[in-house]
């Protein structure tokens, strides 16, 4: 018999509006100064913009800071360190901010001559404002969940996998939380939680989650 969840899973979606802060950096030192004080929404925008903007290409630069430091300032070693920050392991944006600041601090401690971004190539800091809307899809069973997962936009997937955990500071992604707590599917919940969403495209991530759910249902992978 198909298990029925205590609470339905409601798929929501999110759309981002980008706000300008008026702040820009021309050197690593200026970037560090801004990173210490900007709202965490700025950090979120520059570390997650590529995930939602470039869903058809992979691999992509992992964050704007790494891209700018590498391509504009030519600081390849520092750029690599910023690119390698394992965002998936952080539980809050404040934790991520501290890690970025630590890397930039260490770099500046041993840095030689200041490298300036050429005219017109400053890094302009922006902030994400997220609008969260309901979709027509909800699920009370694993079958309905798989159906919704295949139907919703990648922005919905993005919300439940990324936004929920890091920006809303929930314990885990929304899918794993519902599967474990409302449906008792703890093993499946753990398998989804173990995926690193930062190293694949959104469509790739959708396929992997759907495949894990289909396996559990004994269906062929979608």
């Amino acid at each position, binding site marked *: 018999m198909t298990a029925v969840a205590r609470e339905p899973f409601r798929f929501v979606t999110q*759309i981002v509006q980008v706000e300008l802060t008026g702040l820009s950096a021309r050197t690593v030192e200026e970037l560090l100064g801004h990173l210490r004080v900007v709202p965490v929404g700025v950090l979120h925008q520059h570390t997650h913009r590529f995930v939602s903007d470039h869903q058809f290409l992979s691999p992509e630069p992992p964050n704007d800071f790494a891209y700018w430091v590498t391509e504009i300032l030519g600081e390849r070693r520092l750029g690599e360190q910023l690119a390698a920050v394992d965002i998936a392991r952080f539980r809050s944006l404040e934790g991520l901010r501290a890690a970025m600041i630590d890397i930039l601090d260490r770099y500046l401690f041993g840095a030689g001559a200041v490298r300036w971004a050429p005219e017109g190539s400053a890094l302009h800091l922006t902030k994400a404002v997220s609008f*969260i809307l309901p979709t027509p899809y909800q699920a009370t069973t694993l079958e309905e969940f798989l159906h919704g997962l295949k139907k919703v936009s990648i922005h919905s997937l993005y919300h439940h996998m990324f936004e929920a955990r890091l920006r809303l500071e929930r314990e885990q992604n929304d899918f794993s939380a519902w599967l474990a707590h409302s449906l008792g599917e703890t093993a499946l919940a753990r398998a989804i939680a173990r995926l690193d969403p930062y190293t694949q495209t959104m469509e790739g991530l959708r396929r992997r989650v759907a495949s894990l759910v289909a396996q559990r249902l004994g269906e062929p992978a979608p």
Partner: protein
Amino acid sequence: MIRFEDYVPIVGEAVTDELRLLADRLRGTTVCHVNSTPVGGGVAEILTQMVPLLNQLGVPTEWHVIKGGNRFFAVTKKFHNALHGVAQSFTDDDFAAYRSTQEDNLAQMALDSHVVFIHDPQPAGLVARKAARGNHWIWRCHIDLSNPDPSVWGFLQPLVEQFDATVFSAPAFARRLGVRQVLIAPSIDPLSDKNRELSSDTISDIIDRLGIPRDKPLVTQVSRFDRLKDPLGVIEAFRLARPYIDSRLLLVGGSADDDPESAQVLAEVRDRVDGDADIIVLALPPTSHLEINAIQRASTVILQKSLKEGFGLTVSEALWKGKPVIASAVGGIPLQITHGHSGILTHSIEGTAYWIKQLLHEPDYARKLGEHGREHVRQHFLLTRHLRDYLLLLLSLRHPGQDLIYL
């Protein structure tokens, strides 16, 4: 008339459904756009398409154009140049002419919708009405404010800071302001006469009617006759490239009611051409959208060699037609082109000449650039994305200071 449903085959149902959902949340909100010209230029083109679509989505929207004499538009043209960082001298009379035109228009306009969108500096002074109405006001700036002349910015900033929010087309255009600044890139309409698909017969008919020979590859720049679009630099770049590959340059421009300088620039361009049979200069009326469409489609390479640029929508227009584009890395152009992937970015006359030669010699590479450019425009620069951003902005006015908004 274009219907909202007509966009479904181009952008997909998920995108249009999302727009309906957002518009439903705005039911009952009235909007009024104000700019300075009904035709000519990117702002008028966007409003021509945007306003009917907002109405079809159930957001009652009006569009008004301010009235001003030659003196007013001469002053605002100087504003425009000065805001782009080109040195201008201003007198007290200039600012007085600006203020009196605002007062004249305020006497004629109600401006009582829930949200008033003011486009660019020309009607910015209308914000004087805001306090009396108590409604929301948005200043939509289409130009690059990164390096403005302090005298004109010192005059405009106090006006701009009275708005509830400002909108800029690119991060680099903004300044530190005491009000919210939102990033909204402009867009092109894939169904407008300027961008819709045309049959090869239609293209040929139009090109023949305009008297453009097609015996050589056409290298084309479509832009107002404006010094900031550097038409003389385009001629120089073409003349550097021409000895190595037989081709023809086409400079196509229109005029707009709010640009009194264009006739003078057009005369300078014709003087520089000096009877050169390989350079064609076409001054078309501002409503020649179908002609521009056909010209872009008939061209082999498109140029946009601007010295300064607001956003440079002609780049997206050309990319949407799958054309390889060589454009200056100024203003909003680098947002539309990733160098070597979806087009070519240049910084000089010599660089432009070099890439004209390259793209005419390597048609396969040029075709790839055009294909990538078209997909980039589909994702980021079509009218539907622009509509979504405007709807979000209207919704955000109800949630000031919030970064996470549940609808």
